[in-house]
């Protein structure tokens, strides 16, 4: 187990290093530069390049960046001049994570429920009902769902707040909007997986052993069917936790989603790198946890050697 984890850790670090290098090089290929603005003059630009060390050779800059990274120093944002990238991420991530966790709880619980119900009531009304919800969730973009919910429940019916993040009732609409796609996706995967599992021999065995329907469903069916769902959840969790630009924008939530977009627009090299590394690390952790979860849920799939 320990050897497995260690190997996993080394491979992950290598992956992150490759990620950093690739992004570091790629941002410098983006046309334009961080300092160009309407009112920039050549002297000012020179001053700014020198201030941030961009007048040094590229290899020196790269090595300096890595050296600082080892100390946990992600540098100062080029756009938010007095804020360190670490500070920006630290301030905004809790909001994204909070929103993400709520959205995921909503999406996973409801998605699983719908998937199970659909599979157990195959080709009957409940099944079609769940399928329709799934199709809507997968096809309608999140900004439409987000804006609609905001308009209907916030502006027209005045049941819930329109925007911001200041208490439980503020979290309801954004969580639903953000979770809707995942809900749909999870329910489809769960339904398909349940239907596949139900035709397996061990289900017949369990049934013929005399286990009640409830016991069959809960002890065997769900547990086996949930594996594909866990597979897809890894990347989904990482994506949702790092915030989504759209939902956070519509509902005015100060999360980190916007930095992925605004960082590129303003060519804020340090912020782009910092937020990418953050996402990368999160993704690696999420995938590792998915693999570990496999091992727990299905003893057949122990991906490490004993």
């Amino acid at each position, binding site marked *: 187990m320990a050897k497995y984890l260690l190997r996993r850790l080394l491979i992950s670090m290598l992956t992150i290093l490759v990620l950093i290098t690739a992004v570091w090089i790629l941002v410098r290929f983006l046309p334009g530069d961080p300092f160009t*603005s309407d009112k920039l*003059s050549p002297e*000012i630009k020179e001053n700014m390049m020198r201030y941030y060390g961009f007048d040094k050779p590229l290899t020196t800059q790269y090595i300096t960046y890595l050296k600082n990274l080892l100390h946990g120093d992600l540098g100062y944002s080029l756009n938010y001049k007095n804020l360190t990238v670490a500070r920006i991420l630290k301030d905004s991530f809790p909001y994204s994570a909070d929103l993400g966790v709520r959205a995921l709880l909503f999406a996973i619980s409801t998605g699983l429920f719908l998937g199970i119900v659909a599979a157990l*009531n195959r080709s009957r009304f409940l099944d079609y009902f769940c399928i329709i919800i799934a199709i809507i969730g997968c096809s309608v973009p999140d900004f439409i769902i987000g804006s609609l919910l905001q308009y209907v429940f916030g502006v027209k019916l005045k049941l819930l707040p329109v925007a911001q*993040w200041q208490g439980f009732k503020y979290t309801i609409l954004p969580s639903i909007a953000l979770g809707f796609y995942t809900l749909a996706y999870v329910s489809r995967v769960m339904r398909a997986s349940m239907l596949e599992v139900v035709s397996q021999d061990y289900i017949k065995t369990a049934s013929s052993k005399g286990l009640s329907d409830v016991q069959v469903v809960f002890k065997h069916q769900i547990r086996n069917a949930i594996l594909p769902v866990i597979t897809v959840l890894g990347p989904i969790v990482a994506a949702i936790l790092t915030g989504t630009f759209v939902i956070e924008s519509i509902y*005015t939530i100060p999360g980190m989603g916007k930095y992925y977009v605004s960082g590129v627009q303003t060519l804020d090299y340090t912020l782009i790198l910092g937020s990418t590394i953050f996402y990368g690390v999160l993704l690696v952790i999420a995938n590792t946890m998915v693999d570990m979860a496999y091992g727990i849920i299905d003893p057949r799939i122990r991906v490490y050697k004993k």
Partner: protein
Amino acid sequence: MKKNTVLGMLLVVIMILSLVGCGGGNQAPADNAAQEDATPSEKVLTYSVLTDMPTLDQSLVNSVASMTLTSQIQEGLVRLHDGKVIPGIAKEWEVSEDGLVYIFHLRDAKWSDGVNVTAYDFEYAIKRLVDPATASPYSFIAEPVKNAMKVNSGELGIEETGVKALDEKTLEITLEIPAPYFLGMLNMPHFYGVRKDLVEKYGQDFAADPDKNVYCGPFVLEEWKHEDRLILVKNQNFWDKDKVNLDKVNVIVVPDPNTALSMFENGDLDFVDVPPNLVEQYMDKAQLYYDGADDFLKLNMDGKNPLKNKNLRLAVNYSIDREDYINITTNGLYDAGTRYVLPVVAGVDKKYGEEYPYEAFPLKADVNTAKEYLDKAVAELGVSSPQDIKLELLTTDTDNSRIQAEVLQDQIQRNLDIIVNIKQVPYKQRLQMETNHEFQMVFSGWAPDYDDPHTYLCLWTTNSPYNQISYSSDKYDELMDFSSTCRDPRERMDALFEAEKVLLEDGAVVPLQMRRVAWLMDPKVKGLVKSYVGPREDYIYADIQE
């Protein structure tokens, strides 16, 4: 099966209840929810901004949002309020005969930490602004100050900057040219005092948080949750605090203009800008203000560019139907640009547009005149027909820009028969291409730094770093030089007007629009001012009257 469904539902209910349970615990900080906290007698103003301020360091501010907010929490030597220059930290001042030396006499004033505001704070601030080591993106604003630009480029040492504190309460500023607009420029945050001890203490973290700076303006920055909100409270140490009516100001960051509008209609905001696409619905309730931005096409006269030909440039200018363009792209919200300088900037006694009315190009397209110029251009360029002329229109990659470009393309192609191709690139890339002169026509614009036509006209002198179209006119340079040194305000303004005419008669740019914004305000708010120069919204003397 039924039992399963029931149990399944039970499971979900439990999960949802857990979601509810979470609500109590780990929610984001919910303090200072604006209206609910205000005591009944407290006057609180709440409004929103589209983006958070990237910085509130006086020397580094680079955006309208940053500059606007800084002017509400800090005070310069003078203040520009509602178009007038009023005394700030400086209670009076003298200008020398030749207009080059200003002596400011400071009043007694304190920073929010009780320390006195001194002339040394201002001397330090201006030197810090032009110091190349500070790398301020706005150091160019100090251009009128003696040696400022040479210091900024490293040619001279920082002690050579034309600013000196004669004693604690007296500041002397020496200028390169007797610029009459200089006094108004001192309203820019870059000229506000800065506390040297705090900069040295916090280094690059200076002003990153409310406790890392001090304030001498009408309000103090009490709280700053980045990308979320700022909270200002009345500064009890402000020298003019009796004129300040508001107790508290909440500034909420709302990136989506439609969300902001919804919040206003819900009563959560006290004033809001109407998103351009919804303006028609609010025309009867909204007020309009110029935001100072002036958009135009830059025509590149480099090398082999067809637009090097003056007749072609004039043909393009006359082929545009500005009225249609404005109606199609902005539903009549913006003002059509039939001249270059924003007419509402200050003239000598009245507005520049009132003293010097001018229509360089007609509101409707003048196809006949356009064709006359085109024929001459075709002959001079040595092509056989207009269709041999291909022009590329460079613009940003937003939807709005695309619509603007398509309207112009359609008008030019239809009226002149030449070919126009549109190229859309991200904003930063467009700026870089402009700097490198890599365009033929580019959709560009300019916003004023001070209340004088010079801010728009200074771009087109032969040596201006912002002259990216290689426009060079001896007459223009002469007029601009004359205006820089002329002491008589009327003669100076006449010269600036002549320069504007020369620029447009040469067809150097294609004026398109002067931007206006529609905004709504809760009637209980009084004394709030919107301006095209200086702070976008100015509420230092605003009041709430229920």
